[in-house]
């Protein structure tokens, strides 16, 4: 037991989440190991984002337990920003703040440090995600889609959290930018020793950066393991997902 607590960054047990009469997640259990990149796939509207939002405490749950880094998560967590960083699908940058201020925001709110150091850290983070110092004084409205995602990533990583949640990080990016972004996440994960929980539909991301892939169907995790194992899975939905026409074509070309 002691061993397993050390090993897992996120442990979800028998989670039930629903809205009104509808049950979205039904007795779902999932373990995320420390230092891995876990990809989560599932049908649109099947509860992937709901699962992510429940773990980070944005959606109340009906029953079940969630442990993050060995601590059980209650309702709203204190000091959440130091535990995890979240990259929202649309970036969710604060539109009234510049890029620099956006990245500094978690630092300013959680720590006491000098403005000089804060500026340096913000620029350092921006450069780590592949932006230039010149971009720091732009407003979110002036950024392209790819840049918005990078700034959002820099903000999510501002406090060096051990866990990073990504909600469809490559959606809306062209294949080159998406590939770069995947590579960036891989590099940062290695450099900072992050645990990454990634909701994605991008088959290329799943094959290239994810250590394990979990498939969510009918409110449960129906298959979990490295991409190779998932391709062998007999579950009908997983087969349909990975062996559909689109996926076949992609995998064929990748070989």
């Amino acid at each position, binding site marked *: 037991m002691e061993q397993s607590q050390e090993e897992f960054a996120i442990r979800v047990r028998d989670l039930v989440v629903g809205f009104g009469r509808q049950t979205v997640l039904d007795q779902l259990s999932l373990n995320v190991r420390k230092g891995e990149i876990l990809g989560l796939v599932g049908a649109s509207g099947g509860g992937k984002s709901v699962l992510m939002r429940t773990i980070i405490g944005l959606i109340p749950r009906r029953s079940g337990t969630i442990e993050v880094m060995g601590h059980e998560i209650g309702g709203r967590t204190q000091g959440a920003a*130091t535990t995890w960083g979240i990259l929202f699908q649309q970036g969710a940058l604060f*539109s*009234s703040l510049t890029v620099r201020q956006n990245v500094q925001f978690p*630092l300013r709110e*959680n*720590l*006491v*440090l*000098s403005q000089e*150091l804060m500026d*340096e*850290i913000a*620029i*350092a*983070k921006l*450069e*780590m995600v592949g932006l*230039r*110092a*010149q971009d720091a004084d732009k*407003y*979110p*409205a002036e950024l392209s889609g790819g840049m918005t995602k990078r700034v959002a990533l820099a903000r999510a*990583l501002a*406090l*060096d959290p051990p866990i990073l949640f990504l909600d469809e990080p490559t959606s809306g990016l062209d294949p080159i930018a998406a590939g770069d972004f995947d590579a960036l996440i891989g590099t940062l994960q*290695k*450099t*900072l*020793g992050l645990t990454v929980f990634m909701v994605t539909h991008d088959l290329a991301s799943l094959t290239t950066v994810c250590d394990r892939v979990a498939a969510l169907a009918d409110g449960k995790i129906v298959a979990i393991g490295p991409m190779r194992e998932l391709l062998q899975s007999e579950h009908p939905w997983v087969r349909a997902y990975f062996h559909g026409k689109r996926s076949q074509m992609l995998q064929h070309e990748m070989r």
Partner: protein
Amino acid sequence: MNSEPLLLTTPSGDVLKLRPEGSWTAANVTTLETLSRSVGADVDRSRAVTLDMSGVSALDTLGAWVLEKLSRRAASSGRSAEFVGVADHFSGLMDEVRQVNRHTPAPAAAPNPVLLRLGDLGKSTVGAREDITIFLQMLGALFMAVGGVLRRPRSLRLTSLVYQLYRIGWQAIPIVVLITFLIGAIIAQQGFFHFRRFGAESYTVDMVGILVLRELGVLIVAIMVAGRSGSAYTAELGSMKMREEIDALSTMGLDPVHVLILPRVAALVIALPILAFIGSIAALYGGGLVAQFYGGMAPAIYIARLHEAISVTHFEVGILKAPFMALVIGIVACSEGLRVKGSAESLGRQTTTSVVKSIFLVIVLDGLFAIFFASIGM
């Protein structure tokens, strides 16, 4: 896991040995800043600096940067600085940090404050001209749309018009009635209170009647409509603009002025005179109640005095202004809505501008009408 960070210094000849220990992480940032500042002078004095990293138990970007900054400070004036004993799992991070903050762009030179003021003045002058142009463009576009509807009456968006009428007319009635009722009551109370000194209490009725019908009824209602419905129009059209709904309409070959703006402005032009009428009646009623309970004037006398004091001309002067005010409010609200850019902040700014500008223009228009009616003897 989280142990207090330390920075041990051992000077040996010209070489300064620094040995950081404990967790160099963001959680201890205050201590880290103090530590790095305290050795700053020593670093400047020594010829070479060695940073022995073997004692560090935890490291994140912030801690790595503080150490990297110390080594850069040492290296900056031609002296040597090196890291030794970097643990394997920290080496990636240390390498990464070594790359960053190399090219700090020169801060933009502070502009001359006088020039800045002058620039602002020039910009606002150009902006004012642009505002007038946009207003006239919108007016022209609306007339074109009205012309189109007159040629093909079936092209009028009747459903939309009725819905807007319901929203900005029918749903506004309770609040309009309440506020104008109170205004009428307050004016009457003030009249009785002050006119009593001259024994001219009965003239209160003249004052309430003329003031409400000619000016206050329509003005108060127009200001309320600008705040209530004008802001709603700006916010609606603005968020449609942000979500590219208006572009989508245009690409389908539909004119946004025809589909979105004409029904809204037309609804305002129809609803405002009606609201102004209802408001004026409510104000007169409020005045009447005060006359009865505060001024001791029987309702029959109040109505008889009102009969003598006001004529249809007063009512006409008030109500004639309403459609023009509605047109101004509608045009300002819609054109400000279309000027919204991508950000949420811009939506808020444009909505504020819309309300402020339409209230200002309504009052200016009221003044112009006062001059006009005085000169034609109404």
